[in-house]
């Protein structure tokens, strides 16, 4: 069992998400940074859809009651196992009774923790992904985040040597991010609006959640307001009347009434998810064919990707 000793409302059980219920208004949920979560599972040779813990903002402590290998990826900082510092994103052996501390972060926002074979949690609507807005998923099935005293069952396994993610695969979460956007054919934006969106840089605003990230730029973007709500894709970029973009993240609502200027690629979305408020972001257009090729490369590399 993984016994939770310290947790926050940003610590949740996830898998790659809940599919097949969007038409009924159910959010897909899943990891904010799916590249990091897929790394965690694939280091352990799990399927990428095995359950894992998404630890937002650090401040997590848990005890492994059984021996297992565990992987820690994504946001990084002061992490220890039995007081010994973890040297980087990778998978580590843990003896029965050892304590993992995910302390203060110095890079990124979301850390991923997976164990051999995943956690044994009953899926709701085909997935264990926690979504508070929908009261679905997680250990109780009703969307709650992890809390102190929770015990997550897993199977004991043979300890394997430490393995790190090769450096060439690691992304910085600190440098200014150029997000790739699949632009949308839309009557709601004229060329001035599009130029402005693509030419200026934005900072990530304080309002960031699993539903969406707000961005702030010097110049606002003018749009026509559509009369009706339409389906929102994951990574969709809405322009509300304020003229400042909102990027829709994993727990976004299924329908929305603000016009959308484009959609982030899945890779850019993962990298944006790791940016805390004040970080600098800009946009560049990408062709769907190129974005799709990259997406399929990730699928092949990890044996699945969403």
């Amino acid at each position, binding site marked *: 069992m993984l016994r939770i000793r310290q947790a926050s409302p940003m610590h949740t059980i996830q898998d790659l998400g809940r*599919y*097949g*219920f*969007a*038409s*009924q*208004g*159910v959010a*897909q949920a899943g990891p904010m940074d799916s590249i990091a979560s897929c790394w965690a599972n694939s280091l352990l040779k799990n399927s990428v859809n095995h359950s894992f813990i998404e630890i937002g903002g650090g401040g997590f402590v848990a005890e492994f009651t059984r021996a297992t290998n565990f992987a820690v990826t994504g946001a990084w900082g002061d992490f220890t196992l039995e007081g010994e510092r973890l040297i980087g994103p990778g998978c580590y052996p843990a003896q029965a009774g050892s304590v993992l501390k995910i302390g203060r972060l110095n890079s990124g926002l979301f850390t991923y923790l997976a164990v051999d074979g995943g956690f044994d949690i*009953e*899926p*709701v*609507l*085909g997935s264990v992904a926690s979504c508070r*807005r*929908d009261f679905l998923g997680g250990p109780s*099935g009703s969307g709650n985040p992890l809390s102190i005293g929770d015990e997550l069952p897993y199977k004991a396994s043979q300890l394997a040597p430490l393995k790190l993610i090769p450096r060439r695969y690691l992304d910085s979460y600190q440098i200014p991010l150029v997000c790739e956007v*699949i632009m*949308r*054919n839309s009557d709601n934006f004229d060329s001035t609006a599009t130029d402005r969106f693509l030419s200026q840089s934005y900072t990530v605003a304080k309002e960031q959640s699993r539903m969406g990230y707000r961005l702030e730029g010097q110049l606002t973007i003018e749009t026509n307001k559509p*009369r*009706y*709500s*339409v*389906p929102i*894709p*994951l*990574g*969709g970029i809405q322009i509300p009347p304020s003229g400042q973009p909102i990027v829709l993240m994993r727990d976004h*609502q*299924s*329908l929305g009434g603000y016009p*959308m200027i484009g*959609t982030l*690629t*899945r890779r850019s979305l993962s990298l944006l998810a790791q940016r805390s408020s004040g970080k600098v972001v800009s946009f560049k257009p990408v062709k*769907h064919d190129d*974005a*799709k090729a*990259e*997406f*399929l490369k990730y*699928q092949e590399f990890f044996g699945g990707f969403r």
Partner: protein
Amino acid sequence: MNLGERIQWISEDTLEVQLGEPIAKTTLSSVEKISDWIRSVKPEWLIDHCYGFGVLSLIVRPELVTTSLVLDELNGVLNRATSEFSDVDSKFIEIPVCYAPEFGLDLQSISETTQLSLPEIIDLHSGREYLVLATGFVPGFAYLGETDDRIHLPRRDTPRTRIPAGSVAIAENQTVVYPRETPGGWHIVGRMPGSIVSSTKNSIDAKLTMGSLVRFKPISLDEFRIIEESHASD
């Protein structure tokens, strides 16, 4: 009916198809045919779908499809005379609504804006059948329309932070039932007893789905309590 070129990739794995005018009957019948087809055939290339006001979005396995393949499939479904999977009996739904002032929180302000009396508002709201125009936003939520134009109102300037579950509300040319307590900017006219949606570990059972025909039936406060209690003891 042919969808022609109204399709675009909006992300690596998501296609968007324009089905037609947002609340036209032809559009609604297209959505109904397509969603019945998806439910029964479960195409291998399709991961999830969502519909809202004239726009269908399809999350697909991008390695398996092209835009023209998807258009061909959808056109094939639309060109069938009627939906072969449709279950006609389940289409008509009557929802009891108590329009008492303790539930119809905005009836008074609607009356002031529209210059209609409370009974007139209730008659207009309950006096016609509504079509489900779209579903989504949260599980069980359905947009119904169109309402009588005498009770068309823009959304409230300041949304309420909490609208009680079961509240029946209006805004613009539509009316809705809130499946659970959420924030919202619609004008509340009453409340239904019981619940508009239920779910199990494996499924969501929403009363209102695309193709449903809905009528609201006014009930008294006593009737509301009786129905509510019978639901509680289920």
